[in-house]
């Protein structure tokens, strides 16, 4: 039962991951963006736990647990606190309008699928076909970082990109060694804390968290 439907469910979860990446790309509100990020973490946790159960790789259970703790609970909580203290619940500003962004997103997905096709033919893992989706969600998160002008969505984009990378590692080679995974998890946590402090500094200086103000830093 598990061996038969397991890979299919992983494919479904991968597809949901891509769907959530697109939902984040089209989202205008910061609050919903953070909730979508938490949902993406949850899907990632389910996918990793399922891969662990399918392949009997015990270290994947650890990384699944780490995902649940860090990306579903801790980071969304930090982000929620951050926007409450920065008092920014709304974000309507995108540099390119949303339909155009979505079109660029589709092009990126085609690119990622084409790039991943030869690699996944070489891989022997049960999850090999999801590599394209993992690459697509990395690229989509990157696109989100580029097209948003406010700092908080950029931070969420950065964190979502890490989600995509994590999924790529699980899909291609059943996860990285434990030490690397712990290191990356810690890095992400520290990065989000530092970015939080950074955001407060930007707001202190310019009374807004629009990163376009940073372009005017140079002295005349």
């Amino acid at each position, binding site marked *: 039962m598990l061996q038969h439907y397991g890979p299919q469910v992983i*494919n*479904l979860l*991968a597809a*949901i991951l891509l769907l959530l990446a697109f939902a984040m790309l089209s989202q205008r509100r910061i609050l919903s963006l953070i909730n979508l990020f938490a949902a993406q973490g949850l899907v990632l946790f389910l996918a990793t736990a399922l891969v662990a159960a399918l392949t009997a790789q015990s270290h994947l259970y650890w990384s699944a647990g780490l995902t649940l703790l860090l990306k579903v609970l801790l980071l969304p909580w930090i982000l929620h606190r951050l926007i409450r203290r920065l008092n920014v619940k709304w974000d309507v500003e995108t540099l390119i309008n949303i339909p155009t962004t979505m079109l660029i997103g*589709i092009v990126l997905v085609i690119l990622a699928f084409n790039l991943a096709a030869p690699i996944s033919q070489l891989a022997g893992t049960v999850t090999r076909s*999801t590599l394209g989706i993992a690459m697509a969600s990395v690229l989509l998160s990157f696109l989100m970082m580029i097209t948003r002008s406010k700092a908080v969505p950029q931070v969420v984009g950065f964190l979502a990109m890490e989600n995509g990378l994590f999924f790529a590692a699980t899909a291609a080679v059943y996860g990285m060694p434990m030490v690397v995974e712990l290191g990356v998890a810690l890095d992400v946590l520290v990065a989000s804390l530092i970015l939080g402090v950074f955001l407060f500094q930007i707001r202190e200086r310019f009374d807004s968290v629009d990163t376009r103000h940073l372009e005017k830093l140079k002295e005349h």
Partner: protein
Amino acid sequence: MNLAGATAQFTELLLALLLAPLLTGWVNQCRAWLQNRSAPGLLQPYRVLAKLFEKEVVLAHNASPLFRSAPYLIFGCLALAAAIVPTLSTGLPLNAAADAIALVGLLALARFFIALAGMDVGTSFGTLGARREMMVGFLAEPALLMVLFTASLISQSSSLSTIVDALGHREFVIYPSMAFAGVAFTMVSLAENARIPVDNPATHLELTMIHEAMVLEYSGRHLAMIEWASSLKLFVYSCMGLALFFPFGIAQGGDWLGIVLALPVLVLKLAAGGAALAVIEMMSAKMRIFRAPEFLGTAFLLAVLAMLVHVLLEA
């Protein structure tokens, strides 16, 4: 065409005609419950139809024959569409009459006539509604076609009957692409049936209305045909969604016991679908008309993604 097939086909058509107002009534009832209002009764759409059929028709002086014939044409298109979509059984005689693409064409024909009729009398409201309807339609159609193409790619056929056979009667397989297609199809059917995020079905007097603006000039039996046709449209879209995404319980051709058993399954599925529709309508606010392209563009992109995911994961 043999007699058994014709009987099954006729039963299905009759059922669609009779059940369609009930579905509309059920959706209204669910919505009233969710809004803490007392509901207008499940049979209210039938009473409205009966009342309208008795009333006399008031025509504008400059109404052309097209205006008078349009309600029957629209009703005919949608009744044919309801006969083609497999609701109880696959492999019926009319299933071969049109595949999924022709079905979309049939729905487009109905839209074409309703838009023409809206413009016929020359009131500004009708023209406005017709233009908006055509805008929504031309954005929704490619998305709907893409959803149907995804299902066709999976089952190697563009006939809805074969698609249902492939999805429902072979070994159960999870298709991730159908998750995308499902979301896209939901968005398209909300827009096509003049439901809340795009249009408000509960209003007759609002500057933002689309469907009601077009049929504002109709009265009496013409209005009854139009109302019945829009109930049928909701029924057709619901059954198309059920056939594509929940094809379980639909009988195969010639299986009489299966057809009898398919009826309660269909009613249950429609009831669940109607309740879900009411919940979606409650959860969302009506969009500005200029946000509709974005909404339907998203539906189109999701449908394209469904095809891409199918190529990546399932091919």
